């Protein structure tokens, strides 16, 4: 053995207070190190709890990469497992988002206008969040909905994860458009407005119709704005951004009021 578990960590381990990933390292190490097991026995009154933990961990499979990264980032292991089950955080979905964003950035450079990017970027978080929790893509939705964990809480956990991922990718794409300065960030408030509105409508309209309708209205409003003038589209002006912020706040309020509706099947059509 080239290293040994720190005595303080062993004490925390025996008391059940050592958190992953240190916990995993200690588990693995203790199974092969008699010296540390001896120290563990000497430092701990609650040594049985430590062995109990080893016993419980012996056959637990190592979490996947995504889960391990989340835990290393400070997310509790049980929350990381809930997030790992989020359908749209899979590689295929993320790859599709990256592809779309790269293609759109290419269009921006070709057309010498950020409009295509600003129009598309809010739709990606909308779609991602809409499909993060519900019967359409989540194979365990029916089991989740009858669990004691409130559906709205699960929705919010996943929404935050998908938003952070989606907005993060959008931000990276924005960095590829330095010529447009802060204008290239004009997608952010519409993205929040569309996402919140889509979620607020989901219990009533369902997991597909609600975001489709919201996305359709967004595209329709952009088309109308384009027809009505040659300048920047109104949605990306100060007035448009203010309106987006107001819509986001209003929709967030409505979503909160409708939170209990996420605790049962979204719509009768899902039954």
């Amino acid at each position: 053995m080239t290293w040994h578990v720190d005595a303080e960590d062993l004490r925390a381990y025996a008391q059940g207070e050592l958190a992953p990933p240190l916990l995993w390292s200690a588990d693995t190490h203790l199974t092969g190190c008699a010296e540390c097991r001896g120290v563990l026995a000497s430092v701990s009154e609650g040594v049985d709890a430590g062995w109990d933990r080893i016993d419980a961990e012996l056959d637990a499979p190592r979490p996947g990469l995504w889960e391990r990264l989340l835990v290393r980032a400070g997310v509790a292991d049980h929350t990381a497992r809930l997030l790992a089950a989020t359908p749209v955080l899979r590689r295929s979905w993320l790859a599709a988002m990256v592809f779309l964003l790269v293609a759109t950035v290419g269009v921006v450079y070709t057309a010498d206008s950020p409009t295509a990017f600003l129009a598309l970027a809010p739709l990606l978080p909308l779609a991602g969040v809409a499909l993060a929790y519900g019967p359409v893509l989540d194979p365990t939705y029916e089991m989740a909905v009858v669990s004691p964990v409130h559906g709205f809480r699960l929705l919010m956990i996943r929404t935050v994860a998908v938003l952070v991922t989606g907005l993060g990718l959008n931000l990276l794409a924005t960095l590829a458009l330095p010529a447009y300065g802060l204008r290239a960030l004009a997608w952010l408030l519409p993205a929040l407005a569309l996402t919140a509105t889509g979620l607020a409508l989901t219990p009533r309209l369902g997991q597909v119709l609600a975001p489709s309708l919201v996305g359709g209205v967004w595209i329709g409003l952009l088309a109308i704005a384009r027809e009505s003038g040659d300048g920047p589209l109104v949605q990306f002006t100060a007035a448009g951004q203010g309106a987006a912020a107001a819509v986001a706040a209003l929709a967030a309020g409505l979503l909160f009021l409708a939170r209990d509706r996420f605790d049962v099947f979204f719509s009768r059509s899902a039954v």
Partner: protein
Amino acid sequence: MTPTVSASGLSLHYGGTRALDDVSLRLTQGVTGLLGPNGAGKTTLLRVLATAVSADRGAFTVLGHDPGSAAGRQEVRRRLGYLPQTPGFHPDFTAFEFVDYVAILKELTDRTARHREVRRVLDEVDLADVRGKRIKKLSGGMRQRVALAASLVGDPGFLVLDEPTVGLDPEQRMRFRELIARAGEGRTVLLSTHQTEDVAMLCHRVLVMAAGTVRFDGTPAELTARAAGHVWNSAERDPGAKAGWRTGVGSFRNVGDPPPGADLVEPSLEDGYLLTLDGKGAEVATA
């Protein structure tokens, strides 16, 4: 015996379709079978009792808790195990990870206690050896057992199983019946099935549903007895029978009102079920 589940007047409509119509029932400890043709309302009833869907009218309690309020619903869910008709799995999860995920949904957040519970339920369905295998690599029977293990997390007092033996071969079905019988010891199990053999082998009580209503509520023996004097063999199909089919030995088995001098035979549970549905079997339509 105090009922685990007590429901009265449950009704539910989807648009113009009456899925549940004034359903009342009381479930006690042991396995209760729920028989009925497609569209009878079995899955809807199970989903209502599992608190996945709210009824339009009526009320029920599970282990004394009323799911009509958010707090009551949560209490019911803490005591509920649910195996849906088509349990879904995250394809990249192992059996252990999937059951662990369900355990987290059941509020077991302490890692050590949760993993101990996951191992317990996987042992209970005899999947200890494959707990590290990815679910997509398991057979259909094993996947069903993983789903059953997930429903057993937290030792629920009320277990709802929606057609768990569908798609299993005869050996797997027998294996699964053993597990359900074991799960029914000391708790209340509501088992929806199309297999009358499941009911005959497992259940102390059976409900028959059609068109959103409960048409029969009694013991399997009482359901069988309903067909006494209404089952007969004949060389040709009897046009007066409510249902009739050719048996393996070539004669026809008929269910209904027998003609004078008919060759009456011992009824089975299936005969009683068919007679309860007026011989229409799987063709009974929803209202």
